């Protein structure tokens, strides 16, 4: 499977693999909130086509790291490069067009809209709406809208949410909301997907569905994925590499098996009764 992934990544359009640089690179990034040091001097390199898991105790700074990459906040210090481009100072609303999509730990869908509209919004960075053409909604504007709609319908189909296409998201159970959020991120045609606990609150069956989507997205849609997850079963099974944070510091990195065996990780995160992973 790894081979296949690598091969595909090599054929990508905006490849940076060629010059040997990592796809996403976080260098010496720090972030404090008031007195709280959420992240210090974090280094992270993610290769194109990878599925990377980030683990760590609650409050370790995982979400903060993703927030920094997706430019929800600026880092206090350090540099973030993505696809060969320094994105440390890119305005937040440009991050989607740079090619980064994400989901949120606490589902952040637009509750007053249908699933379809949420996904259409995901395509916002690919649209150039004009106020007059929008208000008149005729000709080109309509044609564009239909094109986007076709693409969104493809994603809806892909994620198997066709039956709830016109449902208000507020009325959906959490599991489906997470799936819709994933769809919204996909709709922006990102090359890197940041998923913050995409499987929290799901039962095994639902997790399996989600895993299946993640695999498909990674392999067949050729997206690089960084995900935060507390379910060690999932993390160990699907990721190629794992980075572990604790107290804002990276304490371990490597293959799932390496990280699972790392004493610091056991100490801080898995607990001595680390049978967790095998449940």
């Amino acid at each position: 499977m790894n081979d296949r992934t690598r091969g595909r990544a090599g054929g990508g359009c905006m490849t940076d693999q060629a010059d040997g640089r990592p796809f996403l690179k976080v260098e010496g990034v720090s972030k404090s909130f008031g007195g709280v040091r959420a992240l210090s001097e974090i280094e992270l390199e993610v290769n194109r086509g990878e599925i990377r898991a980030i683990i760590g105790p609650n409050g370790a700074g995982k979400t903060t790291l993703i927030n920094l990459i997706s430019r929800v906040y600026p880092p206090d210090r350090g540099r973030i490069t993505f696809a060969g481009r320094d994105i440390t100072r890119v305005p937040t609303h440009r991050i989607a067009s740079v090619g980064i999509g994400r989901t949120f730990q606490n589902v952040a869908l637009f509750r007053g809209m249908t699933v379809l509209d949420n996904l259409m919004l995901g395509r916002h960075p690919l649209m150039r709406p004009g106020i007059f053409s929008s208000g008149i909604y005729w000709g080109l504007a309509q044609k564009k809208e239909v094109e986007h709609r076709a693409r969104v319908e493809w994603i809806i189909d892909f994620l198997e949410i066709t039956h709830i296409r016109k449902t208000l998201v507020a009325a959906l159970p959490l599991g489906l909301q997470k799936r819709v959020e994933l769809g919204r991120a996909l709709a922006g045609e990102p090359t890197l997907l940041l998923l913050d606990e995409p499987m929290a609150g799901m039962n095994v069956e639902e997790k399996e569905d989600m895993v299946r989507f993640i695999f498909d997205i990674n392999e067949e849609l050729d997206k690089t994925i960084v995900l935060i997850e507390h379910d060690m079963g999932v993390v160990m099974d699907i990721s190629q590499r794992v980075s572990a944070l604790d107290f804002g510091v990276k304490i371990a990195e490597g293959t799932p098996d390496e990280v699972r065996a790392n004493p610091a990780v056991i100490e801080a995160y898995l607990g001595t009764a680390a049978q967790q992973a095998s449940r």
Partner: protein
Amino acid sequence: MLTLQNVEVIYSKVILVIKGLTLEVPEGGIVTLLGANGAGKSTTLKAIAGLLGAERGEITKGGIGFNGHRINDRTPAEIVKLGIALVPEGRQVFEHLTTEENLLAGAHTRRNLAEIRRDIDLVYQYFPPLAARRRIEAGYLSGGEQQMLAIGRALMSRPKLMLLDEPSLGLAPMLVQEIFDIIAQLNQEEKVTVLLVEQNAAMALTIARYGYILENGRIVLDGTAASLRDNEDVKEFYLGLSEVGRRSYRDVKHYRRRKRWLL
């Protein structure tokens, strides 16, 4: 101690969510309620705690009894006074109150300051990270800390029955273990009866003695924890076990994934 008799819950007068649910929690026990997303688990707990009103929901049929009182029509405040505490889904702490003030708010029904102080210290003993953050606004705590706080806060009312809605949601494995340990400990030492809603069925079925499985607003299966653990369907859908032990997530593609034809 707690009994639900054929309860039916409707939201906004039209959405029937709980369809005749019967359930019992014996004094001193730990009972777990499992079920898929949207099955109506949270709704059940809200119905018990009297919280449906705020969400335009109502109990249209059936009765909820607690120690012989019928509590269908009581206000949440009255229900708390009877000794029921709910730890709501998604760690809803009072963001602008400090950790300690959250705990004090939890003790609202009590008057004896000395006892309250003692219980606060007890909570800090159970959850040491909270002690270090007692003066910090709870909105700034990490997810795990907030979950601890929510449980601790519920303890402050000295409940006889604690309703826990997915306490392990979003917690690190070590903490999940800890929290379940603490729940078991509370059950044994403080004699708190527990009704636990969980997605982490493996964990829940280890500490619970009895379990119910809720689907689409109906109980589809119930039994002792041990019997549930052995049930084939439970194994497949809630525990993720195949005949040979734990099923790897990697395998999903082999038997569930459909081939996609991409152009």
